[in-house]
């Protein structure tokens, strides 16, 4: 079961025609897919669309009723390959992932499907992980769409607009035999709002009404000469049909405004931020009535030259607001207007930052610069500017009111995380043997690169931790340590990492972090997830898999056993026979575990059964406040408090009540020779009469002994 349950929310996916649907963006997209009659959906989790995978999993019953097949694909490549279903057959399908990283992985299948073309409508839904809250390199999906000639939708971040984009996307895809990409920015995925629902409809063919006839058409196979013809088709057939469909159905909007001699062209996805900027400048209201005419691009690729020319004609200047780089849209508009006789000044990245998210204040600055240059008729720039100066002064007073920046709160390992002892062990090994080059991977374990661990020199992609060592290892005196999560392992690490290293005879140490789930994205099941917990009929084991591809030196170690981990790591690093040494560090994700344990604990308490709770503590009068423990652990429940001793200076360490009793503090007190302030307390609820008797006797004896403690001399 995933971290977040949508079992309640998915009921609204049954909403009928005319009913108001309320919910978050990803839920609305799912409803839109069901309304569009899809036959299959596939995807791979990753922020910001992880919750959409959870929604689809939790909507199993509704999917079954409608005959919609859903696949929790092994990777984005596997998900994209599902689209082959729509090449020959009138099946509508959708795939979902985090972009641009997921699109990178899916690129091979995507480009092939785009070349062959599709008969059934195909929607590629990408969570554009760009700007604040992103966890990846900052790039645009735009380039992928353009290079494969897929159409790219970037709707307004409001539910009715998003839902319409899904529905139009399928129609556009079928009208042009081309896969359509729909991009949703981070906040749009989570935006809460409402729209008027339609009835769900089953696909033309699906599990209940399967296709009967296999179709063979060599023209759809991506091999010469078909591949040459397909490229021609993209340009001569599909492209013109796309332009026609987009303008006929008015997918882009031209919004009127009083200041007709200027205008703004904007991607739909950042329209709302633009409107707020205009509102603050008194150029629009919160309903979207703008004084400046706006051409809103729901389709950002391809652009419609006629619409752009019509919008620009008669205007002195137009500002193109295009987030990210390169500025494909702006360049394209400039190229298109060239030689048409329209002499409108096209502005864009010359007035706005080339890179980075377009937040409201950035847009305000850009628009002000634009208006100053363009000087449209009827705008009082002086009034606007003095109002802005006042606001700017207040904002800067606030921003400079504190003498120092407040401390950052980067994400880190959770309370009781099984990965913490692993990296503590690695830190101890480094204290003995010196620093190593550690190749990181993608997953929760990458938090090791942050304080207090600072372990992991690079990361180049999901499941690529081991592969990313193979160029450096032979050129490095010490063995390389590579990290890989279980998610990355099944995504591609087994082949690109382990099989690759065995095949090429690479040396080094691979640490596989087996916490039982794709944990960072919210506990989606993976092939090695415990059967009882995943609900899957099969469970594959990592150890069998690596032995199966020829790994010889494999050790599986419970992650909380720091001592054994230190010994094994030291052995793996120093052992002379060359080859790949694999250590599988096992420990269930504590968040997932606690959800189960806490419930069981509560149930036991409710029926009066014996139940244990373990937690660690620190004696404040023994703690000297050196905080070595914090630097070796970083556990959120291990923190500091004012020293209760008036004679002491500085705070003491304290373990708060969120402690889940993983025991790592005690283990580290031993392994790192910390201090004697740590204790482990086991709280026994509803003890047996025998336990109670023994406890009473102990307390009586100890109490008596304490009573005779020596007093003042």
């Amino acid at each position: 079961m995933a971290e977040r349950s949508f079992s309640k929310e998915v009921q609204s996916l049954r909403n009928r025609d005319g009913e108001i649907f309320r919910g978050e963006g990803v839920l609305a997209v799912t409803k839109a897919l069901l309304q569009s009659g899809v036959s299959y959906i596939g995807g791979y989790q990753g922020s910001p669309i992880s919750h959409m995978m959870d929604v689809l999993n939790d909507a199993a019953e509704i999917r079954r009723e409608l005959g919609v097949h859903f696949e929790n694909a092994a990777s984005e490549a596997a998900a994209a390959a599902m689209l082959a279903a729509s090449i020959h057959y009138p099946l509508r399908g959708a795939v979902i992932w985090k972009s641009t990283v997921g699109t990178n992985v899916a690129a091979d299948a995507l480009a092939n499907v785009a070349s062959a073309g599709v008969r059934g409508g195909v929607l590629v839904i990408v969570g554009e992980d760009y700007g604040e809250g992103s966890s990846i390199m900052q790039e645009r999906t735009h380039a992928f769409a353009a290079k494969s000639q897929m159409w790219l939708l970037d709707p307004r971040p409001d539910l009715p607009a998003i839902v319409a984009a899904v529905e139009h996307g399928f129609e556009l895809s079928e009208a042009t035999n081309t896969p359509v990409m729909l991009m949703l920015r981070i906040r749009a995925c989570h935006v809460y709002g409402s729209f008027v629902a339609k009835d769900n409809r089953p696909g033309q063919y699906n599990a209940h009404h399967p296709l009967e006839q296999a179709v063979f058409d060599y023209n759809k196979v991506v091999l010469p000469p078909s591949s040459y013809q397909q490229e021609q088709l993209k340009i001569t057939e599909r492209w013109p049909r796309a332009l026609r469909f987009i303008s006929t159905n008015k997918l882009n909007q031209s919004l009127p405004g009083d200041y007709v001699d200027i205008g703004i062209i904007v991607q739909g996805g950042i329209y709302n931020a633009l409107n707020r900027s205009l509102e603050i400048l008194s150029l629009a209201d919160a309903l979207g009535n703008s004084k400046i005419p706006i051409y809103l691009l729901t389709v950002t690729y391809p652009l419609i030259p006629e619409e752009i020319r019509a919008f620009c004609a008669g205007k002195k200047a137009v500002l193109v607001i295009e987030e990210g780089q390169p500025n494909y849209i702006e360049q394209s508009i400039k190229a298109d207007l060239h030689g048409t006789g329209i002499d409108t000044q096209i502005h864009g990245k010359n007035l706005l930052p080339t890179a980075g998210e377009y937040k409201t204040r950035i847009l305000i600055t850009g628009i002000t610069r634009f208006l100053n240059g363009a000087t449209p008729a009827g705008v009082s720039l002086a009034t606007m500017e003095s109002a802005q100066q006042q606001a700017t002064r207040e904002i800067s007073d606030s921003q400079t009111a504190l003498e120092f920046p407040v401390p950052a709160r980067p994400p880190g390992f959770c309370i009781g995380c099984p990965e913490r002892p692993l990296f503590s062990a690695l830190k101890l090994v480094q204290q003995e043997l010196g620093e190593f080059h550690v190749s990181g991977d993608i997953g929760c374990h990458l938090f090791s690169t942050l304080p207090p661990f600072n372990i992991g020199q690079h990361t180049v992609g999901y499941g690529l931790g081991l592969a990313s060592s193979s160029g450096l290892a032979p050129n490095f005196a010490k063995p390389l340590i590579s990290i890989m999560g279980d998610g990355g392992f099944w995504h591609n690490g087994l082949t690109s990492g382990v099989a690759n290293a065995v095949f090429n005879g690479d040396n080094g140490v691979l640490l596989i972090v087996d916490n039982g789930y794709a944990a960072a994205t919210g506990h989606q099941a993976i092939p090695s997830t415990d059967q009882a917990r995943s609900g899957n009929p099969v469970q594959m084991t990592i150890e069998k898999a690596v032995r199966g591809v020829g790994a010889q030196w494999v050790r599986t170690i419970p992650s909380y056993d720091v001592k054994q981990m230190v010994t094994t790591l030291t052995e793996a690093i120093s052992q002379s026979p060359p080859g790949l040494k694999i250590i599988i560090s096992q420990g269930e994700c504590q968040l997932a575990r606690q959800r189960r344990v806490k419930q069981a604990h509560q149930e036991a308490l409710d029926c009066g059964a014996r139940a244990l709770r373990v937690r660690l503590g620190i004696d404040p009068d023994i703690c000297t406040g050196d905080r070595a423990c914090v630097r070796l652990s970083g556990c959120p429940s291990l923190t500091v408090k004012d020293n209760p001793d008036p004679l002491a200076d500085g705070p003491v360490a304290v373990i708060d009540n969120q402690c889940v009793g993983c025991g790592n503090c005690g283990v580290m007190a031993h392994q790192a020779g910390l201090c004697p302030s740590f204790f482990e307390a086991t709280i026994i609820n509803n003890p047996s009469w025998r336990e109670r008797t023994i406890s009473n006797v102990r307390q009586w004896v100890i109490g008596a002994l304490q009573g005779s403690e020596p007093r003042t001399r």
Partner: protein
Amino acid sequence: MDHPDTRPIRIVIGAMGGEGGGLLTQWMADLCESQNFEVRYTYVPGVAQRTGATTYYLETWPNFSEHNTNQSMVCALMPCPGDVDLVLSTEAVEAGRALQAGFITRSRTTVVSSSHRAYAVAEKASPRDVRIDPEYLLSAVAAQCQRLVHFDMAACAAATGSIINAVLFGAVAGAGVLPFSRQAFTASIQRSSVAVAANLAGFDLGFAIASGESKDLPTTITESSPARAQPTTQALAAMKDTFPPDIHDLLRMAMERLADYQDSAYVQLYLNRLQAVLEADRANGGEQHGYTLTRETGRWLVRLMAYDDIIRVADLKTRRQRFARLREEVRANENQIVRVVDYFKPGTDELVSILSPKLAKRVLSFSARTGFGNRGFPIKVKTDTVSGFLALRIIAGLRSRRTRSYRYFKEQAAIENWLRQLLGAARRDYNLALEAAACAGLVKGYGQTHLHSAGRFEAILKKIPQIDASALRTLRETTLDTSA
């Protein structure tokens, strides 16, 4: 806060993982919708949903349906600096973060914030005390906003068995920042059907405090352990005769500590040592400095003299009061049994510290030759059992032998050396002497940590004759920072 119905109210909710920021946002959305306000909200969950700061952003348009429009409201999806009406913050630094982001401004923003602190990793891990004072943060916020409502909501949550979000929701209602009745708020909690009883309890307390109905603020102050032993009345009288009145309280506590730690002779040794400092203090213009040198030296001297050896640790671990404190800390009630395991890992040097100097040196040189015990001896003691308790009690009983032990001689030599340098410094420059006193703060920890810190302490003392006060200060601070 005004509520013009020509634009949506903009609300920022700053929370940390595990504080229920998401649930609070849902309550707020449900509340506004129940009163016919139009609502949009969004958030950036970040990489991992469990740690770090998360910002939720909500816009709500009063009486939207009366607008008679077929257009929908355009929500910006992100707060804009200078454009936020209400900031809710679950912790003081998060209010500071909203301030630095420009979300709190004078002409627009009402702030409702908890005044407690949850320390960031940088604050926790630093070897120096770099914690940010919540009063400083909130007074800066107060100066830059329209209205600030703040109190310790973490303490309220703990007192009511709820989490901070419920108390904060109650504070929003109690402070009257939104035009809704109390019942409208509590109805949202009930509709969410998440831990309703606990959340309502938290809500009620938050409401009572924010509305001024109650001035009864729960607090989370921990009491310090009272000393078991008291210095003799003669010793106390002698102290009062000798030392300036300003420092009597401090010295009384120090004397209690040392009486508890060792015996009355040890208390006398402390007073004798400090008297020498007082004389030097007086001779170098101490009176106009308020005898700061005597006070500071007195504060550090008791720390050095009551050094933490295994006798002391065993003593503290077996006290009646410790058992009580421990039960309270783990929130155990009378019907529950609490089992206790203590983790020790004494090194050879710590074990031999109770032997005579001669014997200790022989064991240490054996250990140095053979590597015996150089990784320490990990021990787990079940202190709640009679045998575990007795074992520790016996070690604690070695207190009578302490003044003849190897460790005692070592510590006293270090203390004498420190006092010598300090007194020498006092003759040159008063501030230098103060810095020299503060060097005692370098000594920390147990085992290897303690050995290294004692080494650094000794090394820095050697430098005192050659440098001035500011150089010594810099040196001390860098030594502390690099010891991490």
